[in-house]
């Protein structure tokens, strides 16, 4: 979109900084583990078992990280559906975060599944089991990644269009008007697809039936997952924006981010309200007072969402960038824990079984995070993602 041209600009500067090289080295280490995993299978590398078949990779790299990467979706709803154009300045930061989180999540999935070479068969509609929630998740996430990068493509196209003559410039010149024409329908797709799969990520666990603890097993799980993806998406965008502004000396947009987190705070309150009403309605609220590990997991999760949400409702608390960052962090932790509880911690295959991730498993998990950060560092330096520096270097106040 042409209006963005002066809103955002590349950071520029050296790409191969020390943090970049360290992250790349860690990612390379993770790739060695991945090579080993493909040679010997999942067993020797991970702590997964037939009782805990999903271990850390799906719950963390897909179920939690795509929610933290839901900022692009959440901001698109805010900007385009609710017509709040003023948030536009951080739209690209949100989109890039989403594109990287989802892309790393899907690559992680390709390493997690045992027979990835069969995944391509999904392009044939004849293979689809329409009763499978996982089918919907797999198809929607794969398609959404394409739409995410399309939604972000103006950032690349506008740079290539101004670059040296060559294939990139040809592509940029011919595709820019097409993308612009199709943009509303790309955005609409990039809103519908995550609405579907972020809720369905929760519905996956309906099939676990009595093997998911009743504090989490509810027919409302798709709604709770949808709300939690907004919560996590907004919180992550806020944190990443504040961090980026501090790192590269960009305008902080604290007021705008505070407004975003005010929306998130109301979502947090609604999330908890629905959570409690659901427990009462299902007659399971007594489980909150059993003081076992599940009740503890619930309380930690609830407090981590409740406390920052309530504080963020107050303008004085959310007005300070440091406080805003920390409160967003707490919201992100609480929302992530809800998803981790549903997908792993509250899963009860039997008392005789246990699970704790292995070191190699964690290295791979974090390797995908490193990949996403490397991608972020490179792209913000070369393409117009972050809000442009203020014309007048007046004050650094937030």
């Amino acid at each position, binding site marked *: 979109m*042409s*209006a963005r041209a002066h*809103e955002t600009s590349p950071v520029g500067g050296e790409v191969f900084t020390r943090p970049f090289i360290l992250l790349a080295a860690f990612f390379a280490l993770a790739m060695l583990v991945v090579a080993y995993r*493909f*040679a010997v*299978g*999942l*067993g*020797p590398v991970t702590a*997964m*078992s*037939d009782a805990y*078949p*999903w271990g850390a990779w799906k719950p963390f790299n897909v179920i939690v990280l795509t929610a933290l990467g839901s900022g692009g979706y959440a901001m698109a709803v805010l*900007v*385009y559906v609710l*017509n709040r*154009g*003023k948030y*536009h*300045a951080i739209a690209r930061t949100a989109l890039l975060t989403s594109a990287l989180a989802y892309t790393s999540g899907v690559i992680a999935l390709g390493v997690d*599944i*045992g*027979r*990835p070479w*069969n*995944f391509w*068969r*999904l392009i044939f509609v004849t*293979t689809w*089991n329409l*009763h499978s*929630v*996982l089918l*919907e998740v797999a198809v929607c996430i794969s398609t959404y990644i394409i739409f995410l990068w399309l939604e972000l493509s103006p950032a690349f196209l506008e740079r290539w269009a101004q670059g040296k003559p060559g294939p990139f410039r040809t592509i940029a010149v011919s595709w820019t008007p097409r993308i612009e024409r199709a*943009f509303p*329908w790309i955005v609409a797709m990039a*809103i*519908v697809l995550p*609405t*579907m799969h972020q809720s369905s990520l929760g*519905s*996956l666990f*309906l*099939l*676990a*039936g*009595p*093997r998911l603890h009743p504090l989490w097993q509810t027919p409302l*799980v*798709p709604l709770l997952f949808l709300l939690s993806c907004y919560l996590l998406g907004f919180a992550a965008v806020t944190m990443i924006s504040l961090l980026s502004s501090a790192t590269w000396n960009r*305008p902080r*947009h604290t*007021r*705008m981010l505070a407004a975003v987190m005010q929306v998130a705070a109301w979502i947090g309150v609604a999330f908890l309200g629905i959570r409690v009403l659901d427990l009462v309605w299902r007659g399971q609220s007594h489980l909150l007072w059993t003081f076992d590990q599940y009740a503890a997991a619930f309380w930690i999760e609830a407090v981590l969402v409740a406390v920052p949400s309530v504080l963020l409702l107050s303008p004085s608390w959310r007005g300070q960038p440091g406080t805003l960052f920390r409160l967003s962090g707490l919201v992100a932790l609480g929302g992530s824990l809800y998803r981790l509880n549903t997908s792993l911690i509250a*899963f009860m*295959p039997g008392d005789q079984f246990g699970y704790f991730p292995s070191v190699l498993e964690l290295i791979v998990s974090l390797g995908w995070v490193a990949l996403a950060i490397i991608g972020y560092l490179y792209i913000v330096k070369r393409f117009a993602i972050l809000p442009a520096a*203020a*014309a*007048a270097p007046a004050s650094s106040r937030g």
Partner: protein
Amino acid sequence: MGINRRSALKLMMSAGATATAAALPSPADASTVAPRPDALGLLYDTTLCVGCKACVVACNRANDLAPDTGWSGGLYQAPLDLNANTKNIIKLYQQGSDRSFIKRQCMQCLDPACTTACMMGALTKGEFGIVSWNGDRCVGCRYCEIACPFNVPKFEWTSSNPRIVKCELCRDRLAEGKEPACTEVCPRKAVIFGKRDVLLLEAKRRLEEHPRRYVPKVYGEHDGGGTQVLYLSHLPFEKLGLPELGDTPVPQMVRDVQGTIYTGFIAPLALYGLVGAAVFRNRKGVEKAAAAAAEKNEEAGV
């Protein structure tokens, strides 16, 4: 599958239960899911099993699985549970004076959670109601393991080309006119093979004949929507590791919830239309507001 009806029928005749069961009136089937008319299954009776594990050995041999000798849980339990090398197992339950053996294998649910979970239908319920696995359709996601309330499907954790392993009621042997390996070798007929309705009648006959010998219930008649493998026991079933599932099939909740949201795919399409229209309408306004905000931002230096 090359199983013809006649060979299957012959098997049912040989199941031993047929003669007595046929004399009894057919019970009204009250399970939520109607079993397929050709549904085959097993009936296991804890009061007859002596724990010799001949069925475990026979199963391994019939399915070309190396016996799992790696991990033992004491004198009897070896291996501890079903795994990628063990489709069928006899476990010992011992608590005070309560003792029982229990055979575990795929229950061949009438309404299986695993086939509902499986996104490309690698697990399907086919002829005779047998749930079987097709490697070409499996991506190894292990969602079937999350879904199965009986902890049955197992994954080959130490393979670079892993399969999902579970009892398929020896469907290859059925095709040759043989019965499953486990029922063939059982010296006490503690586990017998046959048509599910015949086995159910036989189970009820035993309950009627020896009311004090058994817990008054056929596990699997209605549990989890009903299963094709049925159990009789002298101890409460949950003590033996058979979960209390109620009569509702496990996939029912997900069908109710997702069915409400996605019937006819109308809601997602309507949402797409509405969102598309909203974005189209708001686009110009968003651009203007964005430009204004950027300008204001520059002035204020915020």
